[in-house]
């Protein structure tokens, strides 16, 4: 019979491998119906915050109940048994450890800075209650998905791992890498710094586990106060003292370390020591919530894409209207991983601060593939709705295609318009039927009087879907002579220019 610690290790390896498998499988070739957003869907913080911002527990997010309900009974097991970021932090803290044993005892005892995560949680939840979803910045699952999708996987593929056909590039990807590296490096100074001090999901599960039935108990008669139980303690929950049950990951290391078998996991027995309640100052908590209440109107009073439509904020097909989109998107970058053309990019401040790292289309990098709907398939929160190809391209029973924006010619840069040179690559690649780009054959005279017959292109806005392939393939390589802006996007009622969107015949 393997010990509880061995069982926990098997779970940790299994879940981390599963996480890597899902990240790897999130592409056109390997998707095959795997629930690749599984870890995002079992994340109770995503579910709760989404519930606060949009009053629904969207489909797969109901899976979060399989984490939250057992936590009520068993304690905060998620952090060391399931969470890929927690497991990664644990391994790195352990293997990169240069401390001597007595320092381990010191470093693994409870510190008051561990309270910070509860205040972070309170702040993020207050913002969510106002309708502003910022948990994605710090939610560990969204954070590790984003870091792997944007940073680790493309970096790994620089050594020709064969994950991508052509390595993707990401807008300001280095900031996402840097945050991840900081989190990893912090383990050098304090074991599982992220999990103990900052993680808002850990805080939420900590709150839920404070009433747990089963927990670690210390027999005060058997205990000799040797503190050996602290040597490998993952949560920093003082098993040598009155246990801080909200900090305890039930990693079971203390039980196996105890030379006196004074510790056990289960119901209290005779001589079992009491546990300490959640260590959060009520005054601080109220202060944080007030801060959230103040922060919300401040953040909302800056220019953003939902205050007034922004030309470069082109969202993936099936995206909700901007305000609803921001209320659902957790910045996990699953859409950017699955996008076959690398057009989906993490926004920096283009959409306002709220939209940091949410997906936008940068058409010089890629374009929206006409028959591709993968981003909506992998989105865990339906910020990008799962749409069918028929809905996207406007085939029966749908009347209208989904428009992302509208293309405009820059006649000063366009070869047939400005340079008496034949081209119309944009017309060739235009995927709609009939093509949204049409042309008029025109005889043009150059400065020497030589006459050339060129086809001068135009856009028909009622047919254009804003996919951006024209901008992407335009031979004017730096700033294309045809560019898509968000006006005319289906998801917005205001971002329109034509009085009546003509039906496509």
């Amino acid at each position, binding site marked *: 019979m393997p010990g509880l610690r061995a069982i926990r290790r098997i779970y940790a390896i299994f879940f981390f491998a599963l996480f890597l498998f899902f990240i790897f499988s999130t592409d056109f070739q390997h998707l095959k119906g795997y629930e690749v957003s599984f870890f995002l869907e079992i994340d109770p913080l995503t579910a709760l915050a989404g519930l606060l911002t949009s009053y629904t527990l969207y489909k797969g997010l109901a899976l979060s109940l399989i984490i939250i309900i057992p936590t009520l009974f068993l304690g905060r097991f998620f952090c060391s048994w399931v969470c890929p970021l927690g497991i990664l932090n644990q391994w790195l803290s352990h293997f990169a450890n240069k401390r001597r044993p007595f320092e381990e005892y010191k470093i693994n005892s409870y510190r008051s800075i561990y309270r910070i995560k509860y205040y972070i949680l309170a702040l993020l939840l207050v913002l969510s209650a106002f309708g502003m979803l910022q948990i994605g910045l710090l939610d560990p699952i969204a954070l590790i998905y984003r870091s792997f999708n944007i940073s680790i996987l493309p970096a790994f593929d620089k050594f020709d791992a064969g994950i991508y056909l052509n390595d993707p590039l990401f807008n300001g990807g280095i900031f996402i890498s840097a945050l991840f590296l900081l989190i990893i490096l912090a383990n050098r100074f304090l074991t599982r710094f992220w999990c103990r001090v900052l993680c808002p999901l850990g805080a939420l599960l900590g709150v839920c586990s404070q009433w747990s039935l089963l927990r670690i108990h210390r027999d005060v008669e058997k205990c000799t106060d040797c503190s050996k139980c602290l040597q490998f303690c993952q949560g920093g929950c003082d098993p040598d003292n009155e246990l801080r049950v909200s900090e305890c990951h039930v990693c079971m290391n203390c039980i196996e370390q105890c030379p006196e078998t004074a510790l056990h996991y289960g119901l209290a027995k005779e001589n079992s020591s009491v546990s300490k309640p959640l260590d959060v100052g009520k005054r601080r908590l109220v202060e944080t919530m007030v801060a959230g209440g103040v922060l919300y109107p401040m953040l909302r009073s800056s220019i953003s894409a939902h205050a007034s439509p922004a030309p470069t904020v082109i969202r993936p097909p099936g995206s909700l209207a901007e305000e609803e989109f921001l209320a659902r998107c957790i910045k996990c970058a699953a859409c950017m991983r699955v996008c076959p053309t690398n057009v989906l990019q993490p926004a920096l401040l283009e959409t306002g601060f709220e939209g940091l790292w949410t997906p936008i289309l940068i058409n010089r990098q890629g374009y929206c593939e006409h028959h591709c709907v993968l981003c909506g398939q992998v989105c865990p929160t339906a910020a990008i709705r799962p749409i069918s190809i028929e809905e996207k391209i406007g085939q029966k029973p749908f009347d209208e295609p989904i428009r992302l924006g509208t293309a405009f010619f820059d006649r000063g840069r366009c070869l047939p318009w400005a340079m008496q040179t034949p081209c*119309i690559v944009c017309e060739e690649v235009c*995927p709609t039927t009939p093509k949204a780009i049409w042309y008029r054959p025109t005889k043009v005279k150059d400065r020497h009087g030589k006459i050339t017959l060129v*086809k001068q292109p135009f856009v028909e806005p009622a047919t254009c879907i804003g996919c951006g392939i024209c901008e992407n393939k335009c031979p004017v390589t730096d700033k294309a002579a045809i560019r898509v802006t968000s006006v005319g996007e289906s998801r917005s009622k205001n971002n329109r220019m034509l009085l009546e969107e003509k039906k496509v015949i």
Partner: protein
Amino acid sequence: MEGKKPKKKNRLETLQGRRLFLKRAGRLSGGAAFLAAGGYMAYSDDPVRRTPEKIHFLPDYRVEPSKMYPLMAIVRGSNVDSMVKQAVDKLGGVSRFIKKGDTVLLKPNVGWDRMPEQGANTGPEVVGSVVDLCRQAGAGRVLVSDVSLNDPRRSFNRSGIEKAVHDYGGEVKICGSDDFVMTDMGGSLLKVWPVSRFLMEADKIINLPIVKHHSLSGCTLSMKNWYGVLGGRRNQLHQDIHTSIVDLAHALKPTLTIMDAVRVLKRNGPTGGNPDDVVRENTVIASLDEVALDSFSLGFLGLVPDDIPFLAMAEARKIGQVDWRSLNVSQSQLG
């Protein structure tokens, strides 16, 4: 102080004798000489040291001409597989073109993420039966490659070509950005250009184009299909599309060309999308003369050779003959 061990920070330097001095000075001089030599060798008037790029040349993939067989075989019918095989048989059978152990590269048109019934890519049935023919002739490897305009993995998958190729024992080769080699095309417009490296690996090449409408050149036929071996900023070639098509056809001399005119995209090319723009013409043409083949295939699009400048230009470069009727052409009807 004698007898007392010096503290850690007060440890004393050993005095240098002549021997030690020479030893240390010698080591330093060696290091200095190494630095100086390195500096001398690295010195250059150029800001960047460039190694000259290796330039490849395209071989001639054609087989010996023969008076015994026609130059072009047009087969109409309903079963694509037997039409393809009949067309090749008329030209002398597959063994005339493919020898045992040959590496054969097939170049279908897989430009777009479209389904077979949309007629934007070569039909998977045609590609499948050509792979099958090559395998029957004992080809060592059958590679199928194209440089798609849409996402290549989606294009190969959703066109049905990936499955057809795997079913008959061929290999799909998708070109990533590292799969191109600089090649001297020897053209008037196309000089040195990045070309798919799989061309250099092949002993024989079979061009598998499709008949399609194209708004700039008027049509996409066999000669235009060679755009799909190029990398780089190939959309700049549109600025003189006719010259670049002729340059390509001049540089690439395939073993055989088999034209898919089963489903013909008549409008809104080359991307298509609407099955209503596609008409079934149920024809397969095998040819050794791409100019004659293109000249014949124009008919499906309601065009005549005078509409298409690149045909006369190609004839002037001695690539082939526009007047296909004066050649030895076999026409047949199957079932």
